[in-house]
């Protein structure tokens, strides 16, 4: 049993089966990269983990506790979903920062709304607010954006926006941080600064799942790699092993371009 256990997740859009009985397990502090061609179901899998899509079938467990079961209505209620999805954080390809808030406010908003419902907030809102602000500031500094706290998203570069988005996800202290092609909307020059941040997070032993097309990065930063094709997990293994010694013909074919063969 790992930190995350996914059992038999499947998902269809109309008649198209996008995920077919996906199962895997992820240990704490491990980094899993999901690779595969477009349309292989990588992003849908990530979205199912974050409850942006509701899986048709399957079970998701975090630290042994079931947080989703497609056949148990208890887990499908809006309030249950809202609570359980906080085990995961998600960083989007297109950042999805809130344009009307500064970098700092973007990070604070969700936490502040969460705390508003607690008795602590009612007792001393100033103190709670200050604690959230201090936490957000330290996150931004960690992202190397200490001088950008009061900037609005449109005043930041793509790479800076994505780092704010990472800080925003971290602010809610998720058990597992997910990335959905975090550098695909960035030009090559800005890609580096985002990958560097993710690498630092890996060094801090954060549990992460990364959907990516950056093969070199996937190989270096992750311990495990999942190769998906046509809605199934075709190959799953230790990162270096999978990249250097792919077992499946399809995997070899996919990686051949990357390995320059």
């Amino acid at each position, binding site marked *: 049993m790992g930190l995350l256990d996914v059992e038999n997740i499947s998902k269809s859009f109309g008649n198209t089966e996008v995920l077919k009985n996906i199962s895997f397990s992820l240990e704490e502090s491990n980094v899993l990269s999901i690779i595969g061609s477009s349309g292989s179901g990588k992003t849908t899998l990530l979205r199912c983990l*974050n*409850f*942006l899509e509701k899986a048709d079938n399957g079970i998701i467990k975090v630290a042994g506790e079931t947080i989703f079961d497609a056949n148990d209505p208890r887990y499908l209620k*809006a309030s249950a979903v*809202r*609570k359980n*999805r*906080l085990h*995961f*954080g*998600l960083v*989007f390809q*297109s950042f*999805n*920062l*809130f*344009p*009307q*808030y500064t970098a700092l406010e973007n990070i604070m*908003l*969700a936490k502040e*709304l*969460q705390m508003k419902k607690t008795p602590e907030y009612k007792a001393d809102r100033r103190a709670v607010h200050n604690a959230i602000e201090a936490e957000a500031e330290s996150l931004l500094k960690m992202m190397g954006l200490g001088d950008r706290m009061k900037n*609005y*998203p*449109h005043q930041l570069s793509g790479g800076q926006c994505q780092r704010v988005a990472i800080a*925003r*996800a971290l602010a*809610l202290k998720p058990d597992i941080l997910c990335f959905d092609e975090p550098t695909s909307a960035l030009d090559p020059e800005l890609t580096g600064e985002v990958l560097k941040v993710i690498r630092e997070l890996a060094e801090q032993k954060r549990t992460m799942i990364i959907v990516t097309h950056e093969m070199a990065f996937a190989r270096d930063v992750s311990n495990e790699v999942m190769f998906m094709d046509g809605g199934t997990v075709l190959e799953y293994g230790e990162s270096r092993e999978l990249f250097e010694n792919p077992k499946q013909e399809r995997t070899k074919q996919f990686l051949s371009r990357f390995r320059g063969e």
Partner: protein
Amino acid sequence: MSADKSQTIKSKLFNYLLVAACLLLIVVISVFYIVDGNKNSKSTAAMAKADATYESQNYEQAIEDYKAVLAIDSKKQSAYNGIANSYMALSEIALGQDDESLSNSYINKANQITELGNKNCDTTQFSNQLPIVFKSLNNGFVQTLKLFGITLLGALPLGLLISFGTRSKVKVVNGFFKFLIWIVRGTPLMLQLILIYYGPGTLGNNIWGSKETGRFWAAAVAFVINYACYFSEIFRGGIQGIPVGQDEAGLVLGMTKGEIFFKVKLIQMVKRIVPPISNEILTLVKDTSLARIIAFKEIIFAGYSFMKGSQGISGVVWPIFFTGIYYLVCNGLLTIGFSKLEKKLEYFK
């Protein structure tokens, strides 16, 4: 760069001029209101006193009292009439005392004062029309603004509700609101006004009554429903234009749908809809004139009454032209307000 600068200076100058013109007009109107109201209450009191004196048959004193009224308001025709009547009464008394020459001189005086009164209160004269028309148009414009204000207050929130209704996944709800919008946008507002005001009475239950307040509320209901439907379509466009990623970002951060709407999407929607909504609101200011079809006494009604004949003035066209100034001032101020709001929302993109 410099061309850019001169452009902004020019547009600023235009704004300042417009604001100055509007403020001037507002000052003129309010001064007129205060002075006129003051004059009115004073002259009415003096008039009552003079009438009482006349009733007590103390005609000499009555003449003095009526003159006191004219000192306050030289255009009070009833005071001229009062003086003339007093002189006529005095002439009767003189005749009773067989003093024909004195009697004749009183009659003369009565004729003179009647003539003076006719001249001073001649409503074919522009200078005599001005205060009457001004007052009437001001009163009409207050009604216009009332209808405008209540329509905005009702139609903005109702429009938001209707836009939610048209986005509802429940087919019956969704269908109902789409049908309502089709009816309301597909028929003339004037027809809707007539239907709402005269409809209940035709069915045997006149819920509006025949008083001015009834006309006002009937007009308000018609305008609120009509404008809510137009607003709802603008709102719908504004909400749908927001990228779905904003919803998803809010969801993965554990926010409720309400929190996402109010904390994330509302201001983005507002930014998107300010230009089309301001257009619609400027139209609303002018559309209020349609309410005259149910004899609601707004400003066009007031202006038009001087063509048909009202307060001794008839066949006069300039008052109806003059109503245009009120609309221009009102919409000028709104335009400036909206461009300010648009600027304010430029802090994010």
